[in-house]
């Protein structure tokens, strides 16, 4: 169920049927999360509730994903966003704008832009969990209780100086190996984004976060709540789903 919706890769939330063992090594915690993200395909529907100052805007979307590598998201509402599609294959992100009937491949600084006016950036979406273990050094920096759950606090520091989020603090549920909270920092130490998991549901034997809030701290009075309203695991995906042709299809 890797990559149900792109959000998962930001925070590498995971599902675990294992009970916690006493783990002290931070890298091992990360690996455990990764190991638990073994699922083939998934289909999800959901909405993003963007709150800016006094305004609240709801955007509905559907998403199909295969593993960690491929995903296809389509926006269903509001009217001006309907038909906007995002295709992700590995690290390549392409977006289709129905108003212009054009496809744009996102690169460089564009990946750091707000996605569909939300607190999420495109980069947040393309990021894969594997990247975290390759590009960061992890250290177990403590244990803390988040929403009555015992958590490991893992601190990641980037090996690359140019990383958007140079430091990350992740609170990982000790039993379920699921990130419950994450703070993302710039190299200067400035807090850029805060993610919190508000609700977790159990699907068959899996734990899955269905309500996540992300706050872009650089935008005044802004937060985005992501709610998964429906999710099916191990679905059949028609061939050609993850293609440019599918982006153009009306």
């Amino acid at each position, binding site marked *: 169920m890797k990559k149900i919706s792109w959000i998962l890769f930001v925070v590498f939330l995971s599902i675990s049927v294992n009970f916690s063992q006493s783990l002290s090594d931070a890298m091992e915690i990360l690996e455990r999360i990764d190991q638990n993200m073994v699922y083939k395909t998934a289909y999800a529907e959901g909405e993003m509730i963007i709150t800016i100052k006094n305004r609240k805007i709801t955007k509905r979307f559907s998403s199909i994903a295969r593993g960690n590598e491929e995903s296809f998201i389509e926006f269903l509402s509001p009217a*001006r*966003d309907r038909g906007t599609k995002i295709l992700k294959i590995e690290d390549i992100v392409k977006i289709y*704008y129905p108003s212009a009937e054009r496809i744009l491949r996102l690169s460089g600084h564009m990946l750091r832009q707000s996605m569909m006016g939300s607190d999420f950036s495109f980069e947040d979406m393309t990021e894969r969990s594997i990247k975290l273990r390759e590009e960061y050094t992890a250290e177990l920096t403590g244990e803390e209780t988040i929403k009555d759950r015992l958590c490991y606090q893992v601190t990641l520091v980037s090996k690359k100086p140019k990383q958007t989020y140079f430091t990350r603090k992740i609170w990982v549920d000790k039993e379920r190996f699921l990130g419950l909270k994450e703070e993302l920092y710039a190299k200067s130490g400035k807090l850029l984004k805060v993610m919190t998991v508000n609700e977790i549901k159990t699907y068959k034997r899996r734990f899955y976060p269905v309500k996540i809030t992300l706050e872009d701290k650089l935008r005044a009075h802004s937060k985005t709540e992501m709610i998964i309203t429906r999710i099916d695991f191990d679905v059949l995906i028609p061939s050609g789903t993850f293609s440019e042709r599918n982006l153009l299809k009306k």
Partner: protein
Amino acid sequence: MTMNLFKLAWRNIWRNKRRTFLTLTAIVVGVFAIIFAKSYISGILSGASNTIVRTQIGHLRIAHGEYLRLERVLPKEYLINGTARLEQQISRLKGIDSVIKRIKFNVLLSYGNNTEAAVAMGINPERSDKFLELSKSIVEGEYLKESGLNLIIGKKLAKELQVGVGEELLLITTDINYSTYALPFKIAGIFETGYSTFDRHLLYIPLNKAQEMLDCGDSLHEMLIYLNDPGRSFEVSRKIEVILAVDQPGHDYRVIPWQQNEFIELMPLVDSIYNIILGIVMFIAGLVILNTMLMAVMERYHEIGVIKALGFKNREVFFMVLAEAFYIGIIGSIIGGILGSALSAYVEKVGIDFAAFSQGMIDKIDLPVPFYGRFVYADFSFQILIGAVIFGIVVTLLAVLYPAFKSAQMSPVEAFRTELKV
């Protein structure tokens, strides 16, 4: 006797041509430098004010209070509504030349694999052009058309994207309801104004396409109002405030006369800084004139002694030296005035290619206002000429006061004792 004194003085200055030429040169150069420096400085200042009024603020600018407060980030959502009615009512006021409507927002531009962030400006091409004068700055292709998906883009921006006229550029933005919207535009033309603020960051699209992109109906970010008499801006602004209060009670719009623009308000300060530089130029010019005049009189002690021995009174010697300085001062100032005026007038017309002078340095300066353009034009006026000529004459006279007094006091015997110099 007085007449003879002047005649004598006139003859005296032509007796030693080399010395006269030297003092004349000092005065000519001094007056010339003052005229050109002052014209050049006024040119920069009035040019900057003019360009800001022409391209950015009009004589009056109406915008939402929050838009003005956050203008640096161009907040899309703070708009002026009911603009059709407002425009009608403002146009009916006396002394209005034109009302310009504008939408201004951040966009992402995409061409091939290149993307750039830029500022898109929605305008009515024909109506705006009287003041914006962009059609004159088109270096490739043609000016913006009233309707259709076409745009004109700054030369540096086009270069960075590697696009040319006729090619298609994708514009992407977030509208006022935070939806993403994109439209493909065809490049009608490329402009080069010489101001990097415009050439590097801006593109212009038809107003209605800008409104479509933002999904904001006929609302606007700015209304620029141009008056027949810029001096009446405060008076007209009060009238517009009355219209707004009646038409849209409880609004948060501001009407700002051009004099209240922060950069225009800064101009007197910039002016005084430049005047200090001018003061230094004048001081040096004065010093050079003083020095040469002093030398010219000092080396004539012997000769003055002879005149005194022939029966000249102290007063007569004093006025003779002063008269000589007066002649030289007038001739030098007039020559310097003519040369300085000629160069200033030329630079006023043709301009100095600042970019060529600075060898690309100017390209690296990224000012938020069109202050230094590629070309700098002087602003010569008759007052500058008169002022400089009077300065030249007065300084010359002042310079000889002391030596003239000294030579008048001198006894002939003492004068003969000083070495003879020719």
